């Protein structure tokens, strides 16, 4: 109950500041310098490249060109659609992801392991496949759910996939795992004693959640909102497949067009990217400001606690039913649709007649496809390596940004977030440009893909690690130091283990999204470094949608194994359950 202290560090700080000041400070500067060089190199090189190409292409970044870029016909509507879509989809994913994570971690809801696994399924399904299977469920004309609703006389409940609400719902559900993982880690590191005392003092569950639970996880929650909104602003796939047929154009289609056309309009692309970057920075500054009283969220301190689940009491079953419905609608139905697609030679609406043409040919073909085997291996190496590198590196960056005494330390967080605003295609071109001219023999190897993935997923890594670290009080680290440990020892043996829930969650997220990464990969891979996302793209381009669905099903199965392993690992390290 004493975790929310106004100034818990004052004493510790003075104590540790005296004896080892000189060396401590030096170590911090050296680490900071190394981190800034690596970060700057990874993040600024593509940005500088983009701006430089922007300055030297077309009319450059003159004011008149900026004005021209924003005066394309229909711009105000497009900007409005973009914001509506981004905030709407972020709202769906933040609300559903947070609620799922809360019930998964903090309550005694039944079937929690199932809930955890199910929450991640939308993450692994290739985006285009996810969207198409939702069209088959939610389209006005052929959507299974809508047909069933109409037959039951509940037609008024229907949502058309090809509409703004449809886009928001479908994209939000696809992104929910990002938020779920982030919040899952945050809830695991919260001391339930605070909630218990509130409950004992007579507060209802609703007000406990509002006044105690959510404020304690504010760094993670704000981080989730920020990253979901920015990602929504730059996402293209869902708006293209669902929005364009409905006449709902979003702004990203402009960037997409600018990069696709010839000569490539780098000027236009960089103008849009810089805008996105400014928005990201503003959002991040707002988040940093809101989180500035860091001691408020530090629930992991010298005082031990075990995150015991909250007893839902009479609410246990009603809540479980709500989540069962969520599970059926959001996870099971699209997954069944995917399985159905994978068993069909071509898509037919599910019916008894269509069941006659069920075949396993799609599965046979993908297992016979030799190029898939190589791609799986490369993707596995890359995903594991880049996820590990990102979380470990951003753990250090987060520490510098939140716990070091360096002036201007907030800039670390900003720098690591820059790649959010750089389109994947631009990153690919920039890396080709750099490594074709660099003495390092990286072009055409897995290393160039590794650099691309690490760069692209830094912003995600930093959100996961920093929201996790924000909950760790400096007391523990300070005591380690006072007992004579070096910075590295206390970081490795105290800080990292305490951040483990966030690190594991971020790692799982990055492993999965690196397997899906296409826009840089397609430019950077070569014949012996093919990756899964390229294979997925190929199957789709070739119209082999049945095989792609089969591959999607296999990937879901593989994810389940990965999650089980990661969860087992995560359960042993970090804050232990009661």
């Amino acid at each position, binding site marked *: 109950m004493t975790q929310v202290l106004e100034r818990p560090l004052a004493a510790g700080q003075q104590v540790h500041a005296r004896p080892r000041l000189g060396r401590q400070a030096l170590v911090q500067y050296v680490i900071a310098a190394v981190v800034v*060089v690596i970060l700057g190199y990874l993040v600024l*090189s593509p940005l500088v490249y983009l701006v430089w190409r922007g300055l030297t292409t077309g009319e450059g970044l003159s004011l008149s060109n900026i004005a021209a870029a924003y005066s394309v016909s229909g711009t105000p509507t497009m900007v409005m659609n973009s914001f509506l879509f981004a905030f709407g989809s972020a709202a769906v994913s933040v609300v559903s992801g947070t609620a799922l994570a809360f019930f998964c971690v903090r309550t005694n809801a039944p079937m929690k392991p199932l809930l955890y696994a199910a929450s991640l399924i939308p993450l692994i399904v290739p985006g285009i496949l996810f969207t198409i299977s939702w*069209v088959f469920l939610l389209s006005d004309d052929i959507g299974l759910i809508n047909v069933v609703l109409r037959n039951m006389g509940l037609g008024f409940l229907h949502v058309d996939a090809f509409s703004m609400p449809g886009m928001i719902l479908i994209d939000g559900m696809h992104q929910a795992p990002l938020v779920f993982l982030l919040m899952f880690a945050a809830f695991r590191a919260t001391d339930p004693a605070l909630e218990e005392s509130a409950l004992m003092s007579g507060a209802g569950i609703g007000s406990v959640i509002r006044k105690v639970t959510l404020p304690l996880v504010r760094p993670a929650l704000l981080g989730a909102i920020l990253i979901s909104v920015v990602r929504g602003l730059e996402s293209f796939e869902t708006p293209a497949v669902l929005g*364009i*047929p409905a006449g709902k154009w979003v702004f990203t289609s402009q960037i997409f067009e600018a990069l696709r*056309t010839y000569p490539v309009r780098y000027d236009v692309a960089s103008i849009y990217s810089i805008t996105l970057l400014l928005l990201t920075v503003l959002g991040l500054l707002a988040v940093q400001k809101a989180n500035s009283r860091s001691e408020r969220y530090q629930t992991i301190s010298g005082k031990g606690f075990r995150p015991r689940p909250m007893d839902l009491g009479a609410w246990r079953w009603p809540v479980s039913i709500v989540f069962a419905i969520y599970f059926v609608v959001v996870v099971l139905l699209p997954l069944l649709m995917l399985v159905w697609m994978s068993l069909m030679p071509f898509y037919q609406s599910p019916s008894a007649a269509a069941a006659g043409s069920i075949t396993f040919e799609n599965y046979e073909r993908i297992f016979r496809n030799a190029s898939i085997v190589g791609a799986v291996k490369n993707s596995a190496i890359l995903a594991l390596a880049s996820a590990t590198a990102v979380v470990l590196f951003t753990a250090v960056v987060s520490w510098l940004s939140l716990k070091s*005494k360096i*002036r201007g330390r907030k800039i670390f967080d900003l720098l690591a977030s820059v790649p959010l605003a750089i389109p994947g295609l631009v990153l690919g071109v920039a890396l080709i440009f750099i490594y074709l001219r660099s003495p390092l023999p990286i072009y055409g190897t897995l290393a160039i893909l590794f650099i691309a993935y690490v760069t692209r997923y830094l912003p995600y890594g930093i959100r996961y690690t920093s929201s996790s670290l924000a909950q760790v009080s400096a007391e523990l680290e300070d005591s380690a130091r006072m007992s004579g440990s070096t910075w590295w020892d206390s970081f490795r043996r105290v800080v990292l283990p305490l951040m483990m829930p966030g690190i594991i969650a971020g790692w799982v997220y990055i492993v999965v999204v690196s397997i899906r990464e296409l826009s840089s990969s397609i*430019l950077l891979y070569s014949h012996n470094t093919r990756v899964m996302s390229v294979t997925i793209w190929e199957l789709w381009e070739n*119209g082999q949608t049945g095989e792609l669905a089969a591959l999607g099903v296999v990937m879901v199965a593989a994810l389940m194994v990965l999650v089980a392993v990661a969860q087992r690992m995560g359960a042993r390290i970090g804050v232990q359950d009661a």
Partner: protein
Amino acid sequence: MNPPSKRRTPLYLFASAGAAALVLAGCSAPAGTDDGADPSASAPSGDLCEGSAAVDLVDQVKDMSPEERESFLAEQAAATKGGAIDFYTEINDPDPIVEAFQDKYDGTTVNVYRAGSDQIRQRVLEESAAHFSGADLIEMDSLEMAILDEENLLAPATSSHADELSDAATAFDNFIGDRLSYIVPVWNTDLLPADQAPTSLEDLADARFKGKLALEGSDVYWFAGLVMYMEREEGKTEEEAVQVFKDIAANSAVTSGHTTTTELVVAGQYAIAANNYIHRAVELAGKGAPVGYLPVQVPVVAEITGVATACLSDNPAGALLLQDFILSEDGQQLFVEQDRTPANAELAAQTLNGQDVEPVEVDVEAIAHDYQKWSDLWDTVIREGNAG
């Protein structure tokens, strides 16, 4: 919480480290390029073809008999770069061709980079700007190929099989068409009986298609080809021809991507798509899907996919040998087996169930030259016309 002033970190730490980062990034100062070319240009400066081994080789073999040419190239190909041939292609499934080629020519290995045409174009331009020999043989959409050609990156095209190919395939100087993709209206036969099929391009704007028609939104080439055709053959002004498309767009939902569009037609979301590939329809109909495209009553645009030897190739003999194989009857037959239409005139006729589909003439190079204009025009068509 403010740190004591003596522990203040000098801001120059960031400044200097940031500068170091930029210097590192700047290590990209073109290594080994001697001409001080403006590296910011996406296109290489100077003529990469001048004095290139590929151009010399083309010149050397152009008068040889087919047999002499083949054995000379086969020997050279295997002896260069360990027999490796880098092949950048957008063929759906390049394996059958690659395997047949490797079986036929001992000591060669084909390394495939498969991507979409715009990605291949982007990569070749970047590699060429750095004078890096990436691709030996390039196979992609002729529109994108024409862009590479405008940048002088392709060696002159010669082949001993040129006579067997359709005229449209051999209309270029520095690349040769190897296969064709016909773009036609494709419909769901359960939802649209053949007697309701569109009878002309203008007919697609008819009220009977309202709410049932999909228009794929990336087909600039199809659009430009038909506008130029209407100007040339029907005496329309450009504005009138564009209006035809605006009327069609007003009748349709604009979709994104050919696969998505096909899926949605097969599933019954749309009854008909204005612009889709014949081969996709043939393939799906073969699996029993309810899709059709006959009778063809709308002018047909054929996207031509071409092959070209890169001037920067470091195994030009391998490139030419692979090109000749793709254009040979054996190679072309492999396209037929994948339901694709080869450039070989005789084989092409067999692929469309004996149907004689005569595509309209399209000036690829003219479209490539004005690509920006056509792309902007198409953009206004689908944005303003989109019925939603």
